């Protein structure tokens, strides 16, 4: 059992949990993730390790509540526990060893890019972080990222920091010259846009992919994604890849596989919370029946929504 020792809400749907996981705290490196399983009946969810404290034996997970499983996780209170935490999984980020790196974080991805920024700064790399959110209340990890270097904060509505998308701010930083690498973590559309911004400049760009996973050891193949025309596994070959070679369209598409199931499960969970409701999580008619039914428009929306990162 991994006890929650600290909990804080960072934005309207993003929560930080600090949990006991001494072994993982001791050996994890930037970019690596864990798979958590709250207990019997729960899903296994991949979550990137945002921070770790070796002395306390804890790791920090930053979770965006977008479905029943993530809502259940962020509902945990201090003192309660997560049954299983497996990791650290994935390859550590390939950190450049000198020069200037830009770390781009969107939404909950900002928490994921934080250990990368810190890792770079610790090895003497100049770090500029470009982070964003819909509005002020959605901006997270700004203070933490200042420990790594300069932070440019953007909001879509201009309520805080620079008005506009992170890509605009990123372009300005690159135009100023001297950028050696870009690390991007966020919704799929953001990472795709970042890749397109940096491509003409030839700046090496890495994206952390939030594919669907079960085991995190290469065994299920659910996280397969095309990089440079080759099928690779995000769990063992990644999670970070050359953003210029990733097939983001396929990634977004595959992330939408269980959208209908997730919507149904969330609805049931909310109904159950409101009243005594016995409806099953899996609809008996199969809310996960392959939707030849779903319209093209819905699907495109799914692809866009699928950009919600894992955490």
């Amino acid at each position, binding site marked *: 059992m991994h006890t929650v020792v600290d909990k804080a809400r960072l934005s309207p749907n993003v929560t930080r949990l600090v949990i006991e996981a001494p072994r993982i705290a001791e050996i994890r490196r930037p970019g690596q993730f864990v798979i958590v399983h709250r207990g019997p009946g729960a899903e296994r969810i991949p979550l990137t390790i945002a921070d770790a404290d070796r002395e306390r034996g804890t790791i920090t997970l930053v979770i965006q509540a977008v479905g029943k499983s993530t809502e259940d996780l962020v509902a945990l209170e201090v003192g309660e526990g997560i049954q299983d935490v*497996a990791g650290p999984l994935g390859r550590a980020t390939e950190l450049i060893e000198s020069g200037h790196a830009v770390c781009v974080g969107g939404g909950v991805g900002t928490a994921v890019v934080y250990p990368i920024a810190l890792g770079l700064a610790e090895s003497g790399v100049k770090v500029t972080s470009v982070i964003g959110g819909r509005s002020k209340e959605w901006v997270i990890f700004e203070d933490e990222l200042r420990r790594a270097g300069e932070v440019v904060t953007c909001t879509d509505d201009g309520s805080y920091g620079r008005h506009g998308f992170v890509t605009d701010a990123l372009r300005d930083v690159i135009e100023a010259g001297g950028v050696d690498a870009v690390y991007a973590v966020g919704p799929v559309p953001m990472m795709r846009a970042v890749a397109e911004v940096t491509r003409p400049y030839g700046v090496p760009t890495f994206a952390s992919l939030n594919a669907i996973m*079960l085991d995190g050891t290469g065994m299920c193949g659910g996280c397969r994604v095309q990089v440079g025309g080759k099928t690779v596994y995000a769990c*063992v070959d990644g999670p970070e890849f050359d953003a210029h070679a990733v097939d983001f369209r396929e990634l977004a598409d595959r992330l939408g596989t269980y959208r209908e199931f997730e919507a149904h499960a969330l609805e049931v969970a909310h109904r159950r919370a409101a009243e005594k409701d016995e409806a099953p999580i899996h609809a008996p008619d199969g809310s996960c029946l392959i939707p030849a039914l779903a319209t093209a428009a819905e699907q495109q929306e799914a692809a866009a929504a699928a950009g919600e990162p894992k955490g």
Partner: protein
Amino acid sequence: MTDQPNPTPDQGVPGASHGDSEFQPAFDHPLTPRERMTIERTHMPEQDALARAANFHEVNLGYSEQLAVLEAERCLQCKNPVCIAGCPVRVNIPLFIELLRIGDMAGAAASLLGDNALPCVTGRVCPQEIQCEGICVRAKKGSPVAIGALERYVADWAMEHPESIPVASPQASGKSVAIVGSGPSGLTAAGELVKSGHDVTIFEAFHAAGGVLIYGIPEFRLPKDIVQGEVDRLVASGVKIEANAIIGRTYTLHELRERFDAVFIAVGAGLPVFMNVPGENLKGVYSANEYLTRVNLMGAWNPESDTPILRGHRVVVVGGGNVAMDAVRTAKRLGAEEATIVYRRGKQELPARAEEVHHAEQEGIRFDFQVAPVEVLGDENRWVTGIRSIRMELGEPDASGRRRPMPIEGSEFEIECEMVVVAIGTRSNPLLTASEPDLEINPWGYIVTDEHGMTSVPGVFAGGDIVRGAATVILAMGDGKRSAHAIDAWLGGAYPPTGEVVSGEPAAVAAE
């Protein structure tokens, strides 16, 4: 086990220590071999095919005591019991059958458990027809003794009567062993090593122990509480299990080697093989590993599970092995109106167990033989709509002895479906081996061992699918038992081991 009763066939019925006081012998006099030959093989009761195709309850229902004793009477108690040599873990088959026949259930259970750490499992999933039953002398004239069904009966009795099984308390050896992987090979090795007094810790990557027994083989063939029962029994005997520990990530092999006196690697062949055809990343295409893990380990067949699973009206499973049969029968149970096996060779060449194929046919599974997919087709939203396939003809036998399938030019056609499960095999997972350069692997990534199971790293042994490639539960268990014997010898400073526990290559045919 050396202190078991060893009755002769004619010792008679009464007076033996009955596990069950209501025991009734099948006959009122000891039978002659001629009389035994007249008894016909007892059929294992099973769930009605139509009913079971819509539920996840076990298909086979098991013998009653009466049926078990009657079947036990069919065993001729051969002076030279060839059945034992046909068993990869060398179960003393005539002995447990005889103890069962005379009503000494505790004795039968103790004998069986002494030879086989997972009898509830093997009694259900072993391919007995090509092992013990395949060479039973009764098979020469009619049907062999139903050894698997009898094993299951005794094993289930033992699970229900733990108080009747003597608890071994071996003297502690002071040596420790790490086992990587809690599948059939690792669990078997653990059971053997703990009996020898070693301090055994199993490291499992998933949150639950059992490996393929728990993520791969479906509930309707091997109920998960049965697997849990076997695991619990090992834990009760002193085996420690550390879940969520991935060797190559959470710990390195090197660390295990420093912490433990010996290591046994039994991680299986965990990577799925895909067809490498266009459209394989469309939504609705699963590897069998992913499909079965969602349904079995994560319980997605249960409406209360948070883990989603796609359901299709028409599901195509590509492959012809036991895993393909498990996947297609699972799809049927999850509501598929048409669940179809697509296999590139013919029915004769199916690597799956005959019983599984038979059960699948009974449940209404369709078979498309001599067909190979060339493309997965999808709609504009990238959901699967079908597979384009090509018909095959069978040419000369290949290295495996089976006729080689060759595509028939111009024979391409489409099969409509919403879901495809790819069950064409697995390969080695480099996660562990890549973290240990000293560990010798072959060009396919499987670990190289000597004849006793020791790898190129002294004190590190390996067995099961990570050595032999994808095979059966029982072959993995045979490796576990053999390696445990070798590890015991290594720990005692007497390597290589003397005496044969189980041979490296039992008289069995590996599944594809």
